[in-house]
Structures are given as C-alpha cells and as structure tokens.
C-alpha cells in the first residue's frame, strides 16, 4: 500500500470511529439517532451494544456496558494495523509486526449474527432477550473454536473474544474482580505499592 493511500484510509477510519464514539457515549435518545449513521460504520454500534449486553457481566449494569463499549471503540479507533512490535527476546531475528485491522472481520461477524438472529428467531439480535442473544453468540464461539485464554484483543478471531479480551484486560475490571483498588499499570508514588490495596466500596464495585 502506498503511503498516501494508507493515510487516506486511516483518516476515513478515524472519522468513522469518531462517529462511533459519539454513538456509544450518547444518551439513549441520541443513540437511536446516531444509529442511523452507525449503519455505515465499520462496526454497527447499536448492534455492538446489543451484543455487548449479552457477553459482558450483568453486574456492571447499563452504565458499565456503555463504559466498556466506549473504551472498546476508543481502543479500536487508535489501532494501527501491522504496527512494529517489540523485538522478541532470544527467540528470533525477524522484525515482528502486529495483525491487520480486526474491524472488518468483526463487523462481518456482527452482521452475520444479526442475520442469523432474524432467520432463527424471527427478529434482529437487538430485539431478542439477552439469553437468546447469548445462546446465538455462544454457538458462534463454539463454531470458531475459541480458546479458553484471551489473546491480546487485536488477535481475537471473534468479535466477542476481542470485546471480552479488552474488557478483562482493563485495570478497573481487575479491581472489580479483586474488590480492591489495585489500579494496575498506573504510575503511583513509591511508597504506596508497599501496602495492601484499599478495598473498593460496594457502590464503586457496582459501578
């Protein structure tokens, strides 16, 4: 690919993702409006939202799902395809590069699931109860033979794995699991890591 083409396609993608961000961040009324634009995005945001409700933990609530989606789309927005990776230690002289952009693959999977929902249940994915959505997604993951361990998100073969891999790699998700303010990967004063992490308040954990 020529340098100019690369920049151009990236600009286009950024523009689309910017719109995607707006859709995820918007209140419920605006989401429907943004969804009109969302139909042309790499990932169909309302569809992704319906999808996320079925795979993310229920206990994070509606706000938690919106927050996780905002993070996921921001992450996807910033993704640089085939980026140079750190040189592996002791294992190879080859320069390593990351994967191509996962968005096209994930977008087509989402669309396929939506079509499947209509064919099997007579309604698009977003209109199905969460349990029915989860059943469809689980069957799709079995078809993809998804591994037990999460890969780095961009390497996920399935959009559900990508979304969950990103969600479970977030420090705040770890804090939720541990019930403690670990705040992994955050810079902090030197002494503070020497004590047991403070417990999360119940309300924080719920949010």
């Amino acid at each position, binding site marked *: 690919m020529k340098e100019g083409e690369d920049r151009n396609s990236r600009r286009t993608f950024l523009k689309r993702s910017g719109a995607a961000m707006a859709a995820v961040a918007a209140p419920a009324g605006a989401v429907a409006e943004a969804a009109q634009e969302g139909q042309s995005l790499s990932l169909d945001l309302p569809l992704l939202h319906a999808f996320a409700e079925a795979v993310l933990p229920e206990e994070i609530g509606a706000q938690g799902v919106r927050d996780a989606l905002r993070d996921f789309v921001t*992450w996807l927005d910033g993704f640089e395809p085939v980026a140079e990776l750190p040189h592996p230690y002791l294992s190879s002289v080859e320069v390593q590069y*990351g994967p191509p952009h996962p968005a096209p693959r994930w977008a087509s999977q989402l669309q396929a699931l939506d079509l499947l929902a209509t064919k099997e249940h007579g309604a698009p994915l977003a209109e199905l109860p969460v349990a029915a959505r989860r059943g469809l997604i689980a069957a799709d993951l079995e078809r993809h033979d998804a591994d037990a361990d*999460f890969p780095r998100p961009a390497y996920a073969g399935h959009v559900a794995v990508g979304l969950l891999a990103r969600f479970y790699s977030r420090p705040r998700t770890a804090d939720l699991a541990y019930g403690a303010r*670990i705040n992994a990967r*955050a810079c902090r004063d030197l002494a503070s*890591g*020497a004590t047991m992490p403070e417990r999360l308040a119940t309300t924080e954990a719920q949010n």
Partner: protein
Amino acid sequence: MPRTIEADVVIIGGGISSAMVAERIAEDTEASIAVIEAGNRIFDFENRFNTRRRFLDYGENPYHGDHIPGHDCKNAQSRSMSVGGLAMHWGGTTPRYSPEDFRLRSLFGVGTDWPISYDDLDPFYQEAEERIGVAGEQGPPEYDPRSGGYPMDPLPTSYNLGLAKEWAEKSGIPYWRNPVSKNSRPWRGRRECIRCDTCSICPTGAKYSPDFTFQNLLEAGRIMLHDRTMVRRLVPKADSDAIEQADAFHRDDPDDPVTIRARHFVLAAGYAWSSHLLLMSAGGRFPDGIANRSGTVGRFITGHRWVNAFVSVPIRLYPGVYGSDSLLSKRFQHKDDEAQPDGKYIRHDLRIWESDRGKRARLRDDNGNLLLGDAALNDWRRRIETGSLRMRGYYDVIPARESALTLEPNRKNPWGDPLPRIDFVDDPVSAELRGYTEAKIEERFRRILTAGGGAMLNISFASDYDHPGGGCRMGDDPDDSVVDAWGRAHDHDNLWVAGAPTIVGSGCNNGTLTFAALSLRTASRLAGEL
C-alpha cells in the same frame, strides 16, 4: 555528513559500555571523543508516556526504528540496535557477579579463571552503580560481598513481594531484594521512580538508560555522536600492528565512504557486533581478522540457562502494582556442601516475582464451558482467592571453544557484508551436567513449595543462553584470549574492547552491571594513556 571523523578516542558502538567509557574518559581527560553507532538515535524522552500507553494498549514497539533492516545476527539476544543499545529497553536489573564466578578453575576445577578477581572489579562495580544509580538491599555478606553500600536505599518492597519473601523463606533459603537501576530518590538529574511498572519503557527516566549519559555529554560538548554510521572494517597501519583507521559509511549515503581516525579505538559494540567487526576486518597480515592471532575472536560465547516455574501459593495477592520487582538469592552460587551436595559443579541464582499466571480472566472453565456474562467474573473471583508467583534459576554454563559467532558468507546485509550467526555449545562438563542441574533446581523449587505450601503450575527449561557475552574474552595468555585484563587487544596496542565481549563466563546473574564495570575499568586504564 562528514567524510572524515577524527578524535583522540573513537568508541565504536553506542550502548551502555560505550556510555560508561565515554563518560569516564570525558571526566578524566581532555581527549576528544567520537562515538560511532550504526543504529538511530532515539532521543524522544518527551514522547515516552505516549509510547508507553501504546505499548500497553496495543503491544507496539515503544522505540520505533530501533533496528537496521536487513542487518541481523542469528541467535542474538535481540534485534534492537540504536544509540543506547539494549539498555534502552532493559529491565534495569543490576546484580553483580559472585566472587566464585571469577575463579571457577581454582575453586571447582572447571572452566577458566578470569585474569581479574571480584576484588579487582569491586571498585568499578561501585563506580558503575553510582553512575547509573542503583538502589539495592545488602544481602548476607557471605553470599553478597561488597566493599561499599548501595548508592540508594532499595525501593520499598511491594505488598505482594513482601508476602512472597515470607513464604519463600520458610524453606530456609535467604532472599533479598534484587538490586535495580531505578531511583528510590532523585539521582543525577533523573527523578524518583513512580512505579509505572513498564520498565522496558520507563516514561519518567527513573530507570537508567544510556541516552541520558550521551545527551549529557553532548550538551557539555564532550563527545561527537555519529549515529547511522556503520563501521565495516578496522585497518592496521602498514608499519605496525596499531589500528590506523576504521572504514565506515553513513546509512543515508552508503556509496560515499567515511574514514575514521583515532589514537585509540574502543570497540564497545556488544558481544555480537564486536566480534563481527574484528572478523570482517580480516586481510593482509591479519588473515583471520583483527586481534585474532589466537583464533579466539568470536569464540567462547557464554551465557547461562534458566529453569522457570509458575507456582500457585496459598496467599491472596494483588498482582499489577509492581510486577517487575523481584527477590534474589545467591545462596546456591556459593561453594559449600549445600550448594554442591554431590560434589558436582552446579551453581545458580534464585529469583521470585509476583505473577498472574493461572489467575487471569478466561473464556472457558476447566471443563471447557464458555463463560459469558457474570459467569466469567465469578470464575475469576474464585480463582484469585489464592495467588501465583514466578520462580526462576539461572545456572552457570561453561562454554566450549566452539560456542562461537561466525560469519555466514551466503547471508549478507544490504551493503554486501556477511552477517553473523551464533551457535551456543556447552563445554563437555556442562553438557554432561545439564540434566542433573535442571533436576536439582526443580528439586529446590519443590523444597520451597513444600515449606511454604502451594503447587507447581508449570515448569520450563531454556534451550539457549541468556545474557550472553564473550567472543573477545580476556586473559593473560595471548594464545587463548583476545584482550588482556584491562580490555586491551593482545595484538594491537591502540585497540580496546569494552564490556560484554570480554567476559570469560556469565555466572548466574544478569550481566549488564558487570559489562558496565568492566567498561569503566578499561576506560580507567585508557585514560591513563591519553
């Protein structure tokens, strides 16, 4: 781009050894100094919070362009090549070698004694620790002798590591904090560590990297730094064995040669590229390469292997605060009946880190069932009631003469020069003891597990050498070594080799501090001749 570079001292290579030599020569003398580095200068400190973020989010290389396309060494430690070298992205781990490492033949009847002792190197260890800034905790003196204290107090022990130490010491094996070149207080213009826990890309400069030294020397006008300049050949004088010049080119203009002249040449290009250049310089009166009358250049490439284990422990841990912090024990590097219970040569360190192995969220449970919705979070919570730790032992491997860097005539870089490859070969003593050594280290891991409680999750054994060095080893005998005890080539009075290439063995500990100390020792002798 200059076509001719002239200086009193030319240092070929731009890593930590080069930085130590340049700084010491600049302080001790008025000599002009030129540093020649084939890779790029990546002086982008102001971008490091951003590159760190992208490293965390996307796994990207934080040091863009830190390699030379088409220019590599098979089986080398890393492809990285830039001003600052591998010490740009090192973990900042700075243990010293042990006194026993320098006297293997005398103490154990194996390997080769160094021409210097630990005591000879001790003041240069101390100097290196001062220059790069090392924070550490004094271990038991019988295992961790030092003539002076660490420049800085250790970083506060993390909560997880404090618990790990209590757990591990139930075995009776003493552990202490692994020293690091990370500031527990502001040091030489660099700030105190704030535990970002991405030490390979330290965004604050609390971890030492050689770019700081080079930038300071540049700002003081004490060095010339020529990056992207690749030296292809050292040329001896017609009427003596002294080195007259180095032939080079700038990567932006490879067809236009650059001639480099100096009173003294210091080869500080690491264990791979130092040997490579000497072998590449073969010709005329030196048909086997410069400094290679002994046939030892590229030989005795050394390193150590590891045994690595992840263990589950009955302790609630909170991984993610400071995972790069570790515990060290040199208990089994010592010579005594407990370390070598069967009279066989075995020496290794022990290290412990926090870990999240087996404690991460997952998509399927042990029965292969998918975990969607609350199920994944609940599964995760059940599994983190106990913690996990990483244990590792580096064991000494004595290299054979055939453990070597050689040129591959059919594999060339973009400029037509043959590329190197390294083949690690154990001395017969180490080859015979490999299985015994690995089994013994595993047995010691299990001793710790039995005493503290827990279970082995996974154990693995290295195939190749870690922390390699050698290729231009030091010695008193010019027939069996490349440089003398000060790093001066036996065959050329004005050629010096600094750091990693000169080591005789790799002992059981990370090597960078030793490379820095050896470089300072070389610089101290060279400075006396300027």
